[in-house]
């Protein structure tokens, strides 16, 4: 068998093992919350609202952690068995892309399940299921475009995670500390700048633009942005990893 395929097989096996653990734990929590929700609803007179399991968010965090955390051990392991950095990079991309497809499919499926649960549990016959897309986009929202959006989103997340892994491998604790400190500062300090910016949050505006939120056909345009970002992240990762000496 081709060596690249062997690397992909190895990386995919590891990714699928972690994914099955994640899905198992997620399902247990989901069932627990479902039972809890049922109890709450049965004790109230008239309840309405939307059930959203938040699988996408949980999945996105999982993909980031899985891809970034497995970067170093997989790189070292595959390098030890005589694989080139190029093959290791390509196998990481392939395995992560496969993981993205799986997570995108489950995200779409979880929306159907959430929708069905919302309708089943609600005592109000006019209960409406709200999801991410109904908030962000106004038109062209259907299963196909949602799948496309999820897929592109997971691809950009894995490519970011891969870049993070490659940077952490190369620069070590310096990068890891800087990354999380900067991210933490952004999350805490930036919202405080709204009053300074006369009530206009430029960051939210930029984010909306990136996500093409509120734009006609935005759900189709956003994946283009995501894929371009992913290509840039992957290119930087490739440059970093192909000249990377082994670090233990």
């Amino acid at each position, binding site marked *: 068998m081709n060596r690249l395929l062997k690397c992909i097989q190895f990386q995919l096996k590891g990714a699928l093992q972690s994914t099955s653990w994640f899905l198992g734990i997620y399902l247990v929590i989901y069932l627990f919350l479902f039972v809890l929700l049922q109890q709450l609803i049965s004790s109230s007179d008239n309840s309405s609202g939307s059930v959203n399991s938040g699988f996408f968010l949980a999945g996105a965090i999982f993909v980031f952690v899985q891809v970034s955390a497995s970067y170093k051990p997989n790189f070292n*392991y595959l*390098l030890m068995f005589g694989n*080139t950095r*190029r093959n290791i990079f390509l196998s990481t991309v392939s395995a992560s892309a496969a993981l993205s497809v799986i997570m995108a499919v489950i995200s779409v499926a979880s929306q159907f399940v959430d929708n069905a649960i919302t309708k089943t549990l609600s005592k109000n016959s006019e209960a409406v299921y709200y999801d991410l897309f109904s908030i962000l986009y106004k038109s062209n929202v259907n299963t196909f475009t949602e799948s496309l959006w999820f897929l592109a989103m997971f691809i950009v997340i894995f490519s970011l995670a891969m870049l993070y892994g490659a940077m952490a491998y190369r620069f070590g604790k310096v990068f890891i500390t800087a990354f999380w400190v900067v991210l933490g500062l952004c999350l805490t300090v930036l919202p405080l700048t709204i009053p300074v910016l006369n009530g206009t949050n430029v960051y939210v505006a930029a984010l909306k633009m990136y996500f093409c939120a509120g734009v006609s056909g935005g759900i189709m345009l956003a994946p283009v942005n995501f894929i371009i970002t992913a290509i840039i992240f992957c290119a930087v990762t490739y440059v970093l990893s192909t000249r990377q000496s082994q670090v233990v």
Partner: protein
Amino acid sequence: MADTVLETIGLTKSYGALKAVNNFSIKLDSNKIYGLLGRNGAGKTTFLDLIASRIFADRGEIKLFGQNAVENQELLPKLCYMPEKNLFITTMRVREIIESAAGFYDSFDRKYADQLCIKFALDKKKKYKTLSRGYESILRIVIGLASRAAVTIFDEPVLGLDAAVRDLFYRELLEDYTANPRTFVISTHLIEESADIFEEALIVKEGVLVEHLAVEELKEKARYVSGKAAVVDAAVAGLKVIYSEMVGSVKICGVYEQFTDEKLKKLSGYEVDTSPIPVQKLFIYLTTASKEGIL
């Protein structure tokens, strides 16, 4: 004439001001066992990391079977390097590690790997993280030997192993080498007990290859000369002295020299005793000699 399987030309790697490997040029032949000897920090592991493409050289060439070996996917599977450092995924089981190694080396012998696991009492069901230091070394030995790669490199393979297991490793290595000849490069600190398995020794000091010759030749070149101080001094005049010590009135000198008939005749003309220097001692003398010394 033996074929050259591995060749390095002017290989250099620096870490800041430190030249870990300095202008290293060697040729390793097929079907030989080489011992890579040097003190801590001499540059052995850096050299091995370079030839296995784990790190990149600042300068120089690495050729495997006559072709550039750096990041060469065709050639890298012909070289199996089991480093001292832990590069295994600690959550994997021994069985899974061996299986995946078998997938990466075309010449890997699964049956032999199973036999080795039994011989070394390595439990394949165990996770890597639960293995003791000794069993971690055993796993490396199993993979390295069973890979049957044309060039097999072990960096400190017997670390953490007791004497009986070390002996088993040396015997197993020689048995398998006899049945399936290939090139081995073994870096070790335990020179005395492993010297017998090496055919050639590569001695590294401060990043420089100071000696590369057959172990037998190395042994023949090294002799203690002892006797009265004045007599010993006269006997070793003009010879390469790598060690000297006074024990009471007796002076002992370690001489490292190509003993020609003429030199032997000269020595026999003095009232001195000569005896071979044990390899471990010789290694210590060679690698601790000052820069002004013979090496």
